[in-house]
């Protein structure tokens, strides 16, 4: 075989070899893409299961809280009203009997409003801003600390499921602040930055060292709950300088 033939063979072989390498490369890329799709599908399914689990837990928690609230209302409010109306209706004085009838009407209204809170439809009707304000009013009314609410022209109405999770996370954050931080003021801000909306819960309490691993699973749970609705949970705290929690959700 002459030198020229060898060169021709070499060029042809190189061309075929390079084409084969490229074909293998492209096929490998398609296979890798497919594998990634499968992995992603599994991840999405796993997230879906986690989301359903979280929703179930949250529904249970809210129902439990509602039952406690109903129990308290029955004992402290309706029970008292019933006793009083029994007393008034048993009286021989007509004005007392009239007052007793009025009390019965009031009891009916109270029972109706209580029965409404038995299912979770109230979550749908309640606005997130209203919920936050209610919570802050309760804290301030208890005399525990001062509160501030800042909503920067934000008309944010998340879906029912997102709202339920946000409600529970906000409640948990506020409970933690009250239990552990002893703050003078708790501030909640509703705002947006670029592609995200956020709820900032800030207190000027004790704060804590975030580098020390927590023994409880509270923060991890809150983080996981936010992740199930595609959100993020950011915590920043310095001992003596308070705690700042940011609940971020994509717009």
């Amino acid at each position, binding site marked *: 075989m002459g030198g*020229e033939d060898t*060169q*021709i063979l070499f*060029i*042809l072989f*190189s*061309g075929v070899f*390079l*084409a084969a*390498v*490229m*074909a293998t*490369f*492209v096929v490998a*890329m*398609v296979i*890798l*893409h497919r594998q*990634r*799709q499968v992995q*992603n599908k599994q991840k999405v399914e796993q997230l879906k299961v986690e989301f359903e689990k979280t929703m179930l837990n949250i529904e249970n928690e809210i129902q439990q809280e509602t039952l406690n609230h109903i129990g308290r209302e029955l004992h402290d409010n309706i029970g008292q009203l019933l006793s009083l109306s029994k007393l008034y209706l048993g009286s021989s004085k007509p004005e007392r009997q009239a007052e007793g009838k009025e009390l019965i009407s009031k009891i009916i209204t109270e029972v109706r409003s209580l029965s409404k809170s038995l299912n979770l439809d109230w979550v749908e009707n309640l606005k997130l801003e209203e919920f936050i304000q209610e919570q802050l009013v309760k804290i301030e009314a208890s005399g525990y600390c001062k509160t501030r609410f800042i909503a920067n022209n934000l008309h944010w109405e998340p879906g029912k499921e997102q709202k339920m999770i946000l409600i529970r996370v906000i409640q948990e954050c506020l409970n933690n602040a009250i239990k552990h931080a002893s703050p003078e003021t708790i501030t909640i801000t509703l705002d947006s930055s670029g592609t995200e909306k956020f709820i900032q819960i800030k207190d000027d309490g004790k704060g804590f060292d975030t580098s020390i691993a927590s023994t409880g699973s509270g923060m991890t749970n809150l983080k996981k709950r936010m992740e199930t609705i595609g959100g993020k949970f950011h915590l920043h705290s310095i001992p003596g300088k308070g705690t700042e929690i940011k609940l971020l959700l994509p717009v």
Partner: protein
Amino acid sequence: MVFDKFWELIINNYYLIAIIILGLAGIILFAFLPSGKKKIPHFYLPFSILVLVVFYELLATYMVANRVLHEKIHYLLTSDTFKGWNTWVFNVFNYQLSKILFLLLIRENLNNKTRKTWVLYLIGILIIGSLGLTFSEIEKIHEPQPVIYFLGNIFLIIASGLFFIDLISEDYFLSLNPVEFLPFWYITLILFQSVLTLLSDVAFEYLAFNQVEIYYLFNYTSMILYFLMSIAFIMLFSLGRNTLLKNTEI
């Protein structure tokens, strides 16, 4: 006389006829695209490539047909003796301008910003390298320019590789099926064409003068790949979207 020769050269070249038909089909289909889509690089870049290829293939053929004009242009470009080569047409429009358009098209199909910047650097290096080598006459415009051919092809191979890396690493592409994604096909064809022509382009001088059969073999392969790529572009214009199936558009 010149026109008769020009016409004869066209009708005797099946590749040229196919390119002209595809070019015309491309122009008509592009004209019927909604005006909003015409402004999108995913559509106007393939269109520019289609038109450019028809233009330089016809110009190169015309230069062969009209030797007098060709000679005049040759002496405007250089003072070297005129040998009748139309290499300068391919050097300027095929090996430089069309490679830049192909790189821009691949860049448009990338999602990762860093990779987009890398392709922009490759385009910059190609432009500066081509201009530097041509104007310094290290590689004369009317003669084969193996270094520029090498740079153009290698950069296209790198850019195509970046697209495939993007395809497997970016969430943006997760929802699509590559086989139904038209950019996947034309970038695969760009990759194959660049790899196969890399050897023939770099060894152009040797092959064209010593192994003309091998040179034609590579040349025909390149033509077939370009023909397939043009069909992918035509499909892009006729469908008005970058996927074969309607609901999978990204």
